[in-house]
């Protein structure tokens, strides 16, 4: 940029130069500034809690001295789940607030809206809160972007794997949301059952804007399938469970992780109707009695009470935010130089066990593996709680 513009040249936020010892924007000897954009308002505001869980972790960590002497300042902005607002937020956080990295911005469209900008600016876009496989598929064109949670393709393969053992000749009826999320899961499942005795006998779709999925479930119930793969977001998960209960259809019901929240989905339709539903988990569910005396979960509960007293520790979204923030802190700890490029090096070469992940589950990346978490465990609802089944299943997206 020419001097005539009257801009100071540090404003862009250039990437970390290879040999230079100087720090990138947003990081000093005593502080690291991170930015995130969440839907604190609008239709998806239930997810805003994730940001609170993450903040609680950083406060907890700062009280213990931070990361290598640096305190983490996590600045969040509200985007109301609108992509253009997320982009404005990213611009503000990078160009005005000069954050060192973006962390855990929520939602597939919102992350798609900002990933070109962030990669142009060479600002890390870390551990995005979406399971869309796109964010780990193309490291070359978006080297500064990475997801965190098991992506939807991985999740679907875990279901396929489970079915192959539990019901090798299953006839499956699928309900899926007509968008990238639904197609990611359906695609992964189809790939996963290829060559086995499992067949998809009927598929139905719905749009997020549809009022109900009762008619679709009715058609699936009459299809003669003995297994129901329910790929839905919370509101529709609840509707589908209710419709299955009403129809008298008794399939093996597989419900995707997104819709498997006990308080948000199962309680409203009646816990007895959810008995026997199969889903997946990858971190410790704070509602699961099994973890009552678990040290890591206890630490989470105590810290949340202290640093985010308004948050409900039972809410699994808080646990999600807490756990992903712990991964972030570890990446910052393993960073060799205070530069964005060095942070990406750390992020792309990780092997990490965390207390609040399911036992045996690991955050694992390599320069060619852009999917940090790929282990999930089957859970079954016993009428009161989700109960973990068997052991962790690893499934690679690619």
């Amino acid at each position: 940029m020419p001097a005539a513009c009257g801009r100071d040249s540090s404003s862009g936020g250039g990437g970390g130069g290879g040999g230079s010892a100087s720090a990138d924007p947003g990081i000093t000897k005593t502080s690291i500034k991170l930015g995130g954009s969440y839907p604190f308002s609008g239709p998806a505001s239930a997810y805003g809690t994730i940001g609170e869980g993450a903040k609680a972790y950083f406060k907890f960590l700062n009280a213990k001295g931070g990361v290598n002497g640096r305190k983490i300042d996590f600045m969040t902005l509200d985007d109301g789940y609108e992509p253009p607002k997320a982009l404005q937020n990213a611009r503000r956080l990078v160009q005005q607030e000069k954050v060192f990295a973006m962390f855990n911005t929520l939602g597939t469209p919102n992350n798609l809206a900002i990933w070109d900008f962030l990669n142009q600016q060479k600002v890390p876009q870390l551990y995005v809160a979406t399971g869309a496989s796109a964010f780990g598929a193309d490291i070359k064109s978006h080297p500064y972007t990475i997801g965190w949670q098991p992506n939807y393709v991985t999740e679907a393969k875990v279901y396929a794997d489970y079915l192959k053992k539990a019901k090798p000749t299953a006839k499956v009826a699928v309900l899926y949301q007509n968008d990238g999320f639904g197609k990611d899961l359906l695609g992964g499942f189809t790939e996963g059952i290829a060559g086995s005795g499992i067949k998809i006998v009927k598929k139905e779709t719905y749009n997020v804007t549809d009022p109900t999925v009762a008619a679709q479930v009715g058609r699936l119930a009459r299809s003669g399938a003995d297994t129901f793969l329910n790929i839905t977001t919370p509101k529709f998960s609840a509707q589908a469970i209710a419709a299955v209960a009403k129809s008298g259809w008794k399939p093996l019901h597989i419900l995707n992780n997104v819709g498997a929240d006990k308080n948000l989905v199962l309680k409203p339709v009646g816990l007895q109707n959810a008995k026997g539903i199969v889903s997946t988990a990858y971190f410790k569910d704070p509602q699961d009695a099994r973890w009552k005396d678990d040290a890591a979960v206890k630490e989470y509960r105590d810290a949340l009470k202290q640093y985010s007293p308004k948050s409900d520790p039972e809410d699994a979204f808080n646990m999600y935010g807490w756990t992903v923030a712990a991964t972030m802190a570890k990446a910052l700890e393993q960073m060799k130089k205070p530069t964005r490029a060095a942070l990406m090096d750390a992020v792309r070469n990780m092997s990490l066990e965390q207390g609040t992940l399911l036992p045996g589950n690991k955050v694992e990346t390599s320069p060619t593996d852009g999917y940090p978490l790929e282990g999930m465990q089957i859970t079954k609802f016993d009428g009161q709680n989700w109960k973990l089944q068997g052991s962790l299943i690893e499934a690679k997206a690619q």
Partner: protein
Amino acid sequence: MSLMTVERDSARHKQLRLAGLAALALVAVAIPFFFGPYRVSQFTLVLIYAVAVLGLNLLVGYSGQISLGHGAFFCLGAYTGAILLDKTSIPHLLTVPAAALVCFVAGLALGLPALRLRGLYLALVTLAIAIATPVLIKRFDGLTGGSQGITIAQPKAPSSLGLADDQFLYFLSLVVAVPLFWLASGIVRRNVGRALIAMRDDETAARTMGVNLATFKTRAFGLSAAYAGVAGSLFTFANGFVAPESFTLTVSFAFLAAIVVGGLATVAGALFGALFIVFVPVWSSDVDEALSGVIYGATLIACMYVFRGGIMGLLRAAWSRVVEVQGSIKGRNQDEVAEVAVAGADQRAGAGAGGVRS
């Protein structure tokens, strides 16, 4: 009493107006050099929204037809631009007239029900269109990319200009916006503008005076939609990405809020309205994240109370204390038309729900 008095259309009066315009131009050109990239991107958004708001004001403020669905035209313009850039290799700037054309035709089509529907009924039709738009985008996912949206390459600053990309985008928007403002101020000052206002104030009287209601109503819709379409195509440049979630009802309502805050039936008011809808939400969520919606709403209500006739009304009142313009008018002067317009708007607002005429 005012500080000075000038004769209308005297050399002095013209000089004053010219000086005002020159000052505005200077500020507009200086902005990208005085602010950082984030602020510049906000001002780019202001320019883009101002174009859409101006279009809506032509329709609502001047012709008196209510549209709650201008976000749909904005969306259509944005998608027209994005699809063209995605599927063909046409230069960025050509998508602007293309979006204008598509939206003009769509606006004309929507103008047809407007011939039979008035007031709230028309408002509901337009609202339904705004609600349906994101759903339709998801249905035609072969073309629109469905809920994944479309990513396009943003226009790059030619290196010969020595501008950063954000500065270039700002000037690009400015270069498109200025002629549109000039055009609108020309339209409202001449016969067409007067016909629109007459139609708004009393349809029967307007018809008696020879105003062809059908023509003017549909054209007002078409023109207004074309403005929104241009703004939409610029919005695509500024974001480099379109998705159905980008065009929720809040967009339509923000435009509506902007014309009222800026000043109904004013041309320059669109600029103030756009400043409002870009900066106030950001400011209100800085004050308190949880209460940002409440603060934004309260500010909006406060603006209604404090600035009757919008920010332009306030500025006019302040200006008249500084300079008094005297003398008769050759033709009709823009200010006066606008004053009549504001008075008319107040009157209609006073009519309340009974404003739906039989």
